[in-house]
């Protein structure tokens, strides 16, 4: 298989940074391997991206078993999409996180349609924890509950910035937005989070 950069290696536009070319060819090699269902490539792609996807889902849901299942499902979808040539074109990580985000949003929508289930209820029966541990976990539950009520974009920007620790630029790439748009979005997301935490606490 011949890769794009090998074809055009000598005639690349001078403005194009070499690192970008390498990333592009890596992604293409990965996608090509996934399409062939090559075990080595599949395994390498998994090792490279699974931790990010898992952490992303875990941050949003706070449930390890669920995060494991959903993150695994995202990779199965990647294989299937690659087979149908409907998968990512170049940015594998963005595709994976975006797919994870969709699945999580669907899941949360379903949960919040069921009014009986609430994160805080699950925590109130925790009698063994010492008081400050209880407070801390109660605060986590509040934050997570509030987070789940933000718009999908707001949830995503907070997860990427604070759950994954991505920089503004990385976040912009993954969300396919301009850096300035992400700045504005994170501002609104934090304001909404702050407000919603207050509302949830008063419920």
């Amino acid at each position, binding site marked *: 298989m011949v890769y794009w950069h090998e074809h055009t290696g000598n005639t690349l536009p001078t403005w194009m940074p070499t690192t970008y070319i390498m990333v592009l060819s890596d992604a293409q090699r990965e996608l090509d391997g996934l399409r062939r*269902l090559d*075990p*080595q490539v*599949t*395994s390498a792609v*998994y*090792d490279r991206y*699974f*931790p990010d996807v*898992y*952490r992303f889902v*875990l*941050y949003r849901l706070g*449930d*390890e*078993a*669920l*995060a*494991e*299942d*959903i*993150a*695994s*499902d995202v*990779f*199965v*979808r990647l*294989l*299937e999409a690659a*087979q149908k040539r409907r998968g990512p074109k170049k940015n594998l990580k963005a*595709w994976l996180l*975006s*797919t*994870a*985000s*969709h*699945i999580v949003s*669907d*899941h949360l929508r*379903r949960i919040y349609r069921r009014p009986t289930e609430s994160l805080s209820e699950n925590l109130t029966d925790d009698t063994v924890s010492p008081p400050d541990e209880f407070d801390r976990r109660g*605060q986590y539950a509040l*934050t*997570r509950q509030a*987070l789940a009520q933000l718009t999908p974009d707001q949830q995503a920007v*907070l997860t990427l*910035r*604070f*759950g*994954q*620790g991505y920089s*503004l630029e990385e976040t912009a790439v993954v969300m*396919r937005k301009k850096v300035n748009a992400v*700045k*504005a979005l*994170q*501002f609104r997301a*934090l*304001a909404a989070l*702050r407000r919603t*935490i207050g509302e949830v606490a008063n419920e």
Partner: protein
Amino acid sequence: MSKNLYEALEICLQALGQGADIEACLADFPGLADELRPLLEAAMQARALAAPDIPADVMRRGRARLLQHAAQMREAANAPRRRTFSLQRATVALMLVVFFTLSGTGLVKASSTSIPGDNLYLVKRTWEDVRLWLAPEVERETLEHEYENERLEEVNELFEHGRAADVAFAGVVTEQNGDRWVVAGIPVVVTAQTELSDLVTVGMTVVVSGQTRSEGVVLAQQIALLPAGTALPPLESNEDGDPEPEKGESPGMTELPKAPESSSAIAETETPEPEDGSQPGSEERKFELEGRVEKIEGGVWTVDGTPIYFDQVSSIEQGISAGSFVKVEGTIAPDGSYHASKIESSKASDGGDADGGGTGMGNDDYGSDGSPTPTPDGNDGGDDDGVDDGDNH
């Protein structure tokens, strides 16, 4: 103004990320402090939710599942070639049948005992293919099991004769000692030249292609994962009470797919209570479960509807595979998942009490009352989410 605010927020977030405190950040923007403070507090709360590093066992399980799924997709991509039944192919197959039945039954019969390397071996394999093509869907699995077993018997026969021949067979990896593996009871040597599917561990289902050697091993050329849940025929273990006659004839293994009948007679002696329970609140509880292996998926086996992780088992008794009746012992992790430490084959009829179904469980409702855990915490979260297609922009 708002642009300045966005900028100031970003600068403060970066500072917080490097360990600064909120007041120190705000000191640089006294005019915006009132607006920024609540946002930075929210950011601190958001940061506190960040998850720790991914546990190694989660990573390993996910990889195994994905690779088996990839194997399944590879298989599915190849399957239509064999399964689709065009008129043309049906005609060819029919002609072959007519040819074999009218003029060549002797040939087919003679070929049935042939082994790889014999002149008639090709006839035997072709005849198998024809039978598979013609078999109705319900019988195809039986035949496939039969032929899988036939492959194993052929390997053993080659060993007996000390003959070298190319072989391919499928089975569960039951032992891995460096480059010496055991797959479906057959010793396999893995070399640097072996094309190896990444990450094969004990408990996984694989197909081995290689060459038999006079010293009674198969030198593997390729070991590939088989699709998740591939049902392989249970092999007769040596200690089994009723050793089958070692004939290569097809009726030999037809009793194999008695799964439906035997699954109703699941011997299920559960000991849900913590056994080493000197202190009842101890984190690690033991379990014991008898039942039928329904599925092998990566390092996760489903025994009577209960997923059991095989990440602590170093070797598995030969002859155990999907469909086998087994007795599993192990521990229940704090998250409610089952981890096997020991597995051995058991007789379906041993636990005669199971058919009454007094406390027995339905095959599928893992996590409900019949599950072998004393306190089913329902860690089966993933199955219910029914995630549907996330289309991506």
